[in-house]
C-alpha cells in the first residue's frame, strides 16, 4: 500500500465520519434560525464568546457542553439496562454507517490506480444503504421497549409500523430508478447522471423518474421520522415517544442520530435524483480537460460571491441591537475573515494555474470542486427538510398509514410498470 493510497483512505474515511458529524451542528443551526426566520423571529442569536456569535452557531456548542455535563439518568424502573444504553448507540452508528457508501466526488484517477471517493468503496451501494437504514429503526424500537414506559413503547411501536409501511414504497421507487440506471453502485449511478438527455437536459434522476422522486422523498421523510411523519416522537400526544426516558448524552445520541440520518437521506436524494457531485453540463471529463479555465472562472466568481456575502453580513449582522458599537466591531471582523479566506483560496488557485496545472493537480482540483458541489446540493436538500418541517403539521396516525399503503404503494407499482415498459421499449 503506497503512501498516496493510505493518505487518500484517511481522507475518505475522515470525510465519511466527520462531515456528517459537523453537518449536525450546521443543520441544527439551520433548523433553529430557519424556523426563526420562517416564523418572523430571530432564532438563537445571543450565545457569544467575547461578543462573537457566529450567527448563532455558538449556541450549538453551548448545547453540546450542556448535554455533556448533564446528569445521565437511568431510571430505577428500567430492567434491561444494556438494551437501554445500546439503543441510542444503535441509532447513531447506523445513521453514520449509511453515509459510508455515498460518493462525494468522481473516482480519482492517479497514475494507474483509481480511487472511489466514498468512505467505504463498496460495490453494494444502495443495497448497503437500505440494509443499514432499516437497522436504525431497531434502535428506536429498542429504546421504546427498554424504557419500560408507556409513552416510550407507543413511540417505538409507531416507529416500527411506520418504517414497515414506508420502506416498501421506498424500495419500489428505487426498483424503477435502478431499472433506469442499470446498476446499484452509487458512483456509477452518479456517473450516469453526468450525461445529457437530447443533448441539453442533464440526465438527473428527477428528470427521468419524477414520480419515483416524489415517492422516494416522501418515504425518506418518513424513514427519518421528520415532520410531518414524526409520530414516533409526537410530543403533543406521547410527550417525546421513544426518548422520553433519555437524558444527557444518550439523548444527544438520538438527537444527533436523527440529524445524521437526515443528512444521509439528503445525500442519497442528491446522489440518486440530483446528479450527486455532478455539475450540470460539466461532467468529470470536461472539467479535467478544461481545468485551467475553470480555475480562472472560480477566481472570478469567488470574490463576487464574497462581496455579496460581506454586504449581507454588513447589513444584517449589526441588527437593531442595543449595543451597536460591539455589533459593528463584530461585523468588521467577520468581513475581514471572509476576505482573508477568499484571498487564501485565490492564492492557492493562482499557484495552481501558474505552477501545477495539468496531470494529477487537475484531477485533484476537480475532486475538490465536486465535493463542494455535492455538499452544497446536500445542504440544500437538508434545508428542504427544515422548510417542510416548519410548513406542515403532523399527520394523524391513520392518515399516515393510509398514505403509505393506499397511495404510495400503488403509485410505486404503477411507476415500475411504466418504467419497465419504457426501458424495454428503448432497449
Amino acid at each position, binding site marked *: 500500500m503506497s503512501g498516496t493510497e493510505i493518505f487518500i483512505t484517511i481522507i475518505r474515511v475522515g470525510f465519511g465520519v466527520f462531515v456528517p458529524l459537523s453537518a449536525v451542528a450546521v443543520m441544527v443551526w439551520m433548523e433553529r434560525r*430557519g424556523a*426563526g*426566520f*420562517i*416564523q*418572523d*423571529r*430571530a432564532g438563537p442569536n445571543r450565545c457569544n464568546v467575547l461578543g462573537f456569535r457566529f450567527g448563532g452557531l455558538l449556541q450549538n456548542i453551548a448545547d453540546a457542553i450542556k448535554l455533556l455535563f448533564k446528569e445521565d439518568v437511568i431510571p430505577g424502573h428500567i430492567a434491561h439496562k444494556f438494551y437501554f444504553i445500546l439503543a441510542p448507540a444503535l441509532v447513531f452508528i447506523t445513521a453514520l454507517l449509511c453515509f459510508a457508501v455515498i460518493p462525494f466526488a468522481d473516482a480519482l484517477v492517479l497514475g494507474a490506480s483509481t480511487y472511489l471517493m466514498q468512505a467505504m468503496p463498496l460495490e453494494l451501494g444502495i443495497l448497503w444503504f437500505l440494509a443499514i437504514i432499516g437497522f436504525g429503526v431497531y434502535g428506536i424500537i429498542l429504546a421504546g421497549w427498554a424504557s419500560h414506559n408507556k409513552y416510550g413503547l407507543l413511540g417505538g411501536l409507531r416507529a416500527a409500523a411506520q418504517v414497515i409501511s414506508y420502506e416498501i414504497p421506498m424500495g419500489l421507487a428505487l426498483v424503477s430508478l435502478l431499472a433506469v440506471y442499470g446498476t446499484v453502485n452509487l458512483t456509477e449511478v452518479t456517473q450516469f447522471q453526468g450525461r445529457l438527455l437530447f443533448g441539453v437536459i442533464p440526465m438527473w434522476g428527477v428528470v427521468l423518474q419524477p414520480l419515483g422522486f*416524489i415517492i422516494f422523498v416522501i418515504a425518506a421523510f418518513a424513514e427519518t421520522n421528520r415532520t410531518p411523519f414524526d409520530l414516533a416522537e409526537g410530543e403533543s400526544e406521547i410527550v417525546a415517544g421513544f426518548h422520553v426516558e433519555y437524558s444527557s448524552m444518550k439523548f444527544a445520541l438520538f438527537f444527533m442520530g436523527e440529524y445524521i440520518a437526515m443528512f444521509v437521506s439528503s445525500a442519497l436524494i442528491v446522489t440518486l435524483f440530483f446528479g450527486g457531485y455532478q455539475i450540470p453540463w460539466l461532467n468529470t471529463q470536461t472539467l479535467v480537460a478544461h481545468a485551467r479555465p475553470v480555475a480562472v472562472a472560480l477566481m472570478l466568481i469567488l470574490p463576487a460571491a464574497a462581496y455579496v456575502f460581506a454586504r*449581507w453580513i454588513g*447589513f*444584517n449582522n449589526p*441588527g*437593531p*441591537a*442595543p*449595543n451597536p458599537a460591539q455589533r459593528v466591531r463584530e461585523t468588521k471582523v467577520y468581513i475581514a475573515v471572509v476576505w482573508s479566506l477568499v484571498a487564501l483560496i485565490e492564492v492557492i488557485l493562482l499557484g495552481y494555474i501558474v505552477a501545477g496545472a495539468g496531470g494529477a493537480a487537475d484531477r485533484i482540483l476537480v475532486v475538490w470542486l465536486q465535493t463542494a458541489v455535492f455538499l452544497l446540493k446536500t445542504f440544500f436538500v437538508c434545508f428542504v427538510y427544515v*422548510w*417542510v418541517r*416548519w*410548513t*406542515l403539521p403532523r399527520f394523524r396516525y391513520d392518515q399516515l398509514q393510509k398514505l403509505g399503503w393506499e397511495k404510495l404503494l400503488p403509485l410505486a407499482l404503477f411507476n415500475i410498470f411504466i418504467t419497465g415498459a419504457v426501458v424495454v421499449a428503448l432497449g
Partner: protein
Amino acid sequence: MAARVKQIKRRGRTFLEQLYLIEVIKGMGVTITHFLRNLRDNRNLYVRDYPEVKPEITSRWRGRHRLTLHPDGTVKCVACFMCQTNCPSECIMIEATERLDGVAEKMPARFTIDLLECIYCGYCVEACPMDAIRMDTGIFSVTGTSREDMVLELEDLLATPGGFAEHEQEDR
C-alpha cells in the same frame, strides 16, 4: 326572526387539493417568502431584544405585589385576611396584631408572600377592601438564588414603590 343560515363551501375536496402536493408546495411558498424576506433584512422581525430592551408594561399588568401606604406614610393594610382567604395558591401568610397609632384597630405584624407559590392571579388585589395590596409595581421578572429570596416580608412589600403614576391607572 328565523336564524340565518349561511352555507359555507367545504374546501379541500377537489381533486387538485386531494393531491396534497400542490397545496404543500403552496404552503412552502408562503414559508419561504417569510424566510427570504427575513434573511435579506432581519430588521423586521417581531422580536424584542429583551434583556437590553425592556417590554412596555401596562398598568393593568399583574406584576410583583406591594403594600401601599396612606398619604401620611402609615400602613394601609388592616390585616383583614381577605387576600389570604381568597388566595387560591395559599401563598399569603399574615399575622395580625393590635394597632395603637389610631389609624385603624388592626395591622399586620407579619405579611409574607411566597412568590414561588404565587400564581399572580390578582385575586388578592380584587379582594382587598383597603386597596392595600396592589400588583402595579411593573416588576415582571422575579428572580432569586434561594427559596428564601423568593419570600417577601412586610418590609419588602412596603418598600416597593408603585410602577405607575395615578393618572396612568385611571383605566383600571
